[in-house]
């Protein structure tokens, strides 16, 4: 069945996968091409077409030119917002998740299974169940409409995933290693720092990639808890679509979409293997 002969059936297989692949790539290609066509050219023809003139200026306009509501600073401030939320929240949730995963997998303490079970329920509880409470909590601690507030949310909610990932990785580490280190006189942190962390490379990459992608792409919290200049880029993109509804600027919008998608696409290209591992690890929860 799995031979490399070029029978007609194999040509069919190649034809089928090529067609699907083309269909899967088409939206990306269309947007990339559009980002290089002028707004007028798109308005005259369709969204789908080859650029007659390379309109590189779309990117400059998208980055720092176009206007959303009253401000005309392009997508740049919102990209910065997303980075300022995503990077700290990724680092915090990964670090705390690694320590928590280490604690629940390799050290037993009273109630650990309960706590761990509840934390993993966070994977299932819909965001909608947490919107109102977060609104109130953020307002009470003065973090509503701040990036810090979003960092806090994503750190705490990210713990469900990061703890699960790390715990599932650490349970495979033999307990004898911990016993040996304890007889050697190492404590909780020294064991983590000197023995567990050096073994954690793969799982930390998976966790960081997963958290980064998720937080960067998150929309609901961004649009609910921030407004105007504080919004992350996903919320800004929606605001942009609404703002330009009267006079469409599809060339610039396409460039903005590409810029907004670029960080996670780059991460996918560079760490595809770990990205997929995160996907499947999240699935087998």
């Amino acid at each position, binding site marked *: 069945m799995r031979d490399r002969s070029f029978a007609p059936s194999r040509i069919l297989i190649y034809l089928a*996968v090529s067609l699907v692949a083309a269909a899967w790539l088409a939206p990306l290609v269309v947007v990339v091409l559009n980002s290089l066509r002028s707004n007028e050219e798109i308005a005259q023809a369709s*969204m789908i077409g080859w650029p007659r003139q390379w309109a590189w200026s779309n990117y400059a306009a998208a980055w720092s030119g176009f206007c959303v509501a009253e401000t005309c600073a392009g997508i740049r401030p919102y990209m910065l917002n997303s980075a300022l939320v995503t990077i700290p929240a990724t680092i915090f949730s990964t670090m705390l998740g690694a320590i928590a995963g280490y604690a629940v997998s390799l050290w037993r303490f009273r109630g650990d299974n309960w706590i761990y079970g509840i934390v993993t329920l966070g994977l299932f509880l819909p965001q909608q*169940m947490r919107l109102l*409470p977060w609104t109130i909590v953020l307002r009470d601690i003065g973090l509503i409409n701040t990036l810090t507030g979003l960092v806090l949310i994503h750190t705490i909610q990210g713990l469900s995933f990061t703890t699960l990932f790390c715990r599932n990785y650490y349970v495979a580490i033999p*307990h004898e290693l911990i016993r040996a280190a304890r007889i050697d006189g190492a404590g909780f942190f020294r064991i983590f720092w000197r023995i567990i962390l050096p073994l954690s490379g793969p799982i930390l990459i998976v966790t960081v990639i997963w958290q980064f992608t998720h937080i960067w792409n998150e929309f609901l919290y961004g649009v609910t808890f921030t407004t105007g200049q504080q919004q992350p880029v996903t919320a800004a993109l929606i605001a942009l679509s609404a703002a330009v509804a009267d006079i469409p600027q599809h060339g610039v919008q396409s460039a903005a979409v590409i810029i907004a998608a670029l960080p996670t696409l780059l991460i996918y290209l560079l760490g595809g293997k770990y990205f997929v591992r995160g996907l499947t690890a999240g699935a087998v929860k």
Partner: protein
Amino acid sequence: MTDAVLTRPGRSAATELVRRLPEYLLIWVPLLLSAAHLVSFALWTIWISFTPSTLVPVAGWVGLRNYTAVTASRNWQIAFDNLLLFGSAFVLLSAATGLILAILLDQRIRGENLLRSIFLYPLAVSFVVTGTVWSWLLNPGLGIQKLVHDLGWTSFKFDWLIDRDMAIWTIVIAAIWQSSGFAMALFLAGLRSVDADIIKAAQIDGAGPVRIYRRIILPSLWPITVTVVVIQLQFAISTFDLVRALTNGGPGIATQLPALVVYDLMFQRSLLGRGAAAAVLMLLILLTVLLPYAAWRYVQRRRAAHA
């Protein structure tokens, strides 16, 4: 033996506590915060759903009134019907697409890695981006229909995006594009984990490729299929960003989904009690999927433990 590695003999309780305070703080504070926020937030939202809260949360008890108000509204009824249609169509089609792609990729074809990357890349992109891009492609005045018209076939019609009856299918299309790759990745892992000796044995028994797939490989995939279906359903139930960017619930309220209803009630109409009730209803819908799945997983594990 148990795996109780942390049963340290205690010294004086106080010095022990001080010495280990940093580790307690770092383990317990994040875990407790995470667990506590989940429990308290869920309970609080459930509580609010039984109160007459509108603009601000207020105490009080209105019984199921918020629930009956939500379920009686046209907005929710359409959202619920849409969820049934969207959920089943999307889950079936994306699982089928994923399975077919996985079987095709399993034929030892050249360029498998490249193809796999192509089918998976939409997962790295936000739903906002996906929705925006597909709103352009499916816009009859801008996208595919316009292109075909410009090419000369002017009677061609592909205007689902503005067709009340068909608009929900545009969300199905975009969602399939976004997440079939996920199903493919899981199915491919399942296909690859079939014991090679079993396949050799079947070949010696004289089974052809089609029969081997039908009788041996595909039957072994059904636990993965259940997982794929449950995860995709979970995604379907909480779909928000994609619709927001693609149709924003329109035309009219034709592509309304529960998550949009919740947002609308909570933050646009400031009907917190009803919004909370709608959120709890979403959770209940989710539980009708997750609880049987959890029970199934439990039985599977018990059986595996006994074997």
